[in-house]
């Protein structure tokens, strides 16, 4: 009996060490270094820097999390990075100047914002082909997708609209005018709201996804920081819909917003020109890319404290995490 018990423990230990404990990995695109930084988030250090194509900006994981899609904007295509070998294994068409994209919840297709051509390109990631092109406003950038994948929201920076697009017909069903230079759109996990940041307007518009009306406009005020320097870019809302985080650009802060009352609870001081945000899969940590100080900040979501900054390449832009 005793021997049997010891054996069980021994086997359990072997099994545990054979299948590696899920390690949190963070991937960051460095716009001006043409590289991807790979960060071991348990050790909080960069473990690899992978050269990629020109001007990498938006990055996203494939559904099975074995590949990273990279908008290499100045190469006018998407690079596919194999995450096991850390080798580029191919490219996907994207239309010119891909900046930011979003993947359908089923894993295919990919919706790409082509900043220079006022287009959304719909790309089949299996076939490596373009399925459709959707004309939108000037300088499309932000891309949000409803959790059921039926509604795509694209923001156009110079037209100042959030375009609601039906992903089956590729028709624009609504255009919601928001404040100047909308950069980013994200659906709440219940699909009921879309949060759109306006960089020059300095606000976040919370849009009701059903009525397509702006239900709340969130403004920010930081003592000692010029109003013009408050420039919202990236935003993320927790899955339980309780907290939202908004990157405020050259204000060098991430705003913490109560996503129910829309009140700003706190400003967290991060690196310079904070840009995009990503949660760890368990939402215990939040990472921000800081474009000018060339680092990322790590935020403890429960304590609402910045716990670490990690130096990466020049102009860190896009960021994703994986267990």
């Amino acid at each position: 009996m005793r021997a049997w018990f010891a054996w069980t423990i021994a086997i359990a230990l072997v099994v545990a060490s054979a299948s590696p404990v899920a390690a949190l990995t963070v991937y960051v695109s460095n716009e001006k270094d043409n590289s991807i930084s790979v960060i071991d988030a348990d050790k909080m250090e960069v473990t690899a820097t992978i050269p990629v194509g020109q001007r990498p900006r938006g990055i996203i994981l494939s559904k099975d999390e074995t590949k990273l899609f990279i908008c290499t904007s100045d190469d006018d295509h998407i690079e596919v990075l194999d995450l096991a070998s850390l080798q580029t294994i191919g490219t996907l068409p994207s239309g010119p100047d891909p900046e930011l994209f979003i993947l359908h919840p089923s894993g295919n297709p990919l919706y790409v914002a082509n900043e220079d051509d006022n287009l959304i390109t719909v790309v089949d990631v299996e076939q490596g082909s373009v399925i459709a092109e959707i004309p939108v406003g000037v300088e499309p950038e932000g891309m949000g997708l409803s959790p059921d994948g039926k509604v795509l929201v694209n923001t156009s920076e110079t037209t100042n609209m959030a375009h609601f697009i039906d992903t089956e017909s590729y028709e624009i069903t609504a255009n919601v005018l928001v404040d100047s230079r909308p950069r980013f759109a994200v659906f709440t996990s219940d699909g009921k709201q879309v949060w759109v940041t306006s960089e020059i307007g300095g606000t976040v518009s919370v849009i009701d996804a059903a009525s397509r009306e702006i239900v709340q406009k969130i403004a920010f005020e930081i003592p000692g920081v010029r109003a013009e320097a408050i420039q919202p870019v990236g935003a993320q809302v927790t899955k339980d819909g309780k907290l939202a985080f908004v990157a405020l650009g050259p204000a060098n802060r991430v705003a913490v917003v109560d996503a129910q009352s829309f009140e700003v609870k706190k400003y967290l001081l991060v690196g310079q020109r904070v840009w995009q945000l990503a949660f760890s899969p368990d939402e215990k940590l939040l990472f921000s890319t800081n474009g000018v100080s060339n680092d990322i900040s790590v935020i403890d979501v429960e304590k609402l404290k910045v716990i670490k900054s990690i130096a990466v390449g020049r102009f860190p832009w896009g960021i994703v995490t994986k267990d």
Partner: protein
Amino acid sequence: MLHRGGAWYSICCMAVALLIGPPESGWSEELATVRIAYLSQVVELPPKLSNLELPPEDEGLQGGRLAIKDNNTTGSFMKQSFELHHVSVPAKGDVVAAFRGLLAEGFRFVILNVPASRLVELADLPESDGVLLFNAGAPDDSLRNEDCRANLLHVRPSRAMLADALAQYLMTKKWDEWFLVIGPRERDRLYGEAVRRAATRFGAKIVAEKTWDFGPDARRTAQSEVPVFTQGIDYDVLVVADEIGEFGEYLAYRTWEPRPVVGTQGLTPTSWHRTHERWGAAQLQSRFFKATGRRMTPLDYGVWAPIRSIGEAATRTRSTDFATMLAYIKGPEFELAGFKGQKLTFRAWNGQLRQPVLLVSPTALVSVSPQQGYLHQRSHLDTLGYDEPESKCRLN
């Protein structure tokens, strides 16, 4: 006749357009159109030293065309469309008659690239009541002070704004002893005046001031003339005022002491430059280059910005009614995303567009003013140019 030239062709098309008629007919019922005019006068430049880079013939106009294109993309979602009509008057042509012609055709938004004295004359015409004029080219401070007009907005930074932007940067470098060299023209004198004002404002000292009077084209004589001209003066930087580029380019590397050249040549303050790529400007630059095959100039930006302002007004008010749009542009809600890192607005007291100023060398962006630490109770952009208390203009 049609083959002879563009003029007949455009008259022809205008006639056709008139025949097709007013917007109430056919498809245009749904599409409300805003018509914008751009009136420019050809400037005859005297022979100058730097004849290497002649200004493009379509300078200004192409900025306008790009803005119209951007407006129309947005307009397609708003059932609004925008048209640009350009009239170029020869150097000795009759600007007033051309302007009157545009107003008679019903244009109420007119962008102007004409000399300062003409601007005032046009703004003061009886028929200019109830139109909105945008000054795209003239940097004269008088237009933002004693000669300001309620129906005239200024997109181009004034000389005072440019000089202040430069001065702030020189002060952050602690280069505060300036040797001012002024060219022979009236506009050089005005630039020099702005530099002197900036020195007083920001605490620099003009240790010497000289007028360049060696005449035009010193290309082959500068090497012997400039060292003597700059000898025996103790200074940090040489500030040159030579707006049309007759001699300024030839000062650098030839001064007696090894000193940087700044001002209209060397390190130059400007509203726009081909090397500017921050804050999304890379996108605007690339759209412009794709459309025209050349780089965007300050004048292109000067025509682009008002047309985008008009577009913004139409989008935000969801209207193409002139009075509604005018009220928005002049109101507190107006903001333009002008690829300069923060919203651009018009100063209520003199109609000047607030904007950051770029400091550039020919192939590099050196800095952007206002510099850090120059504070203002309203907007740090108001540290550049004539601020409300010192302005002789009171439109608000």
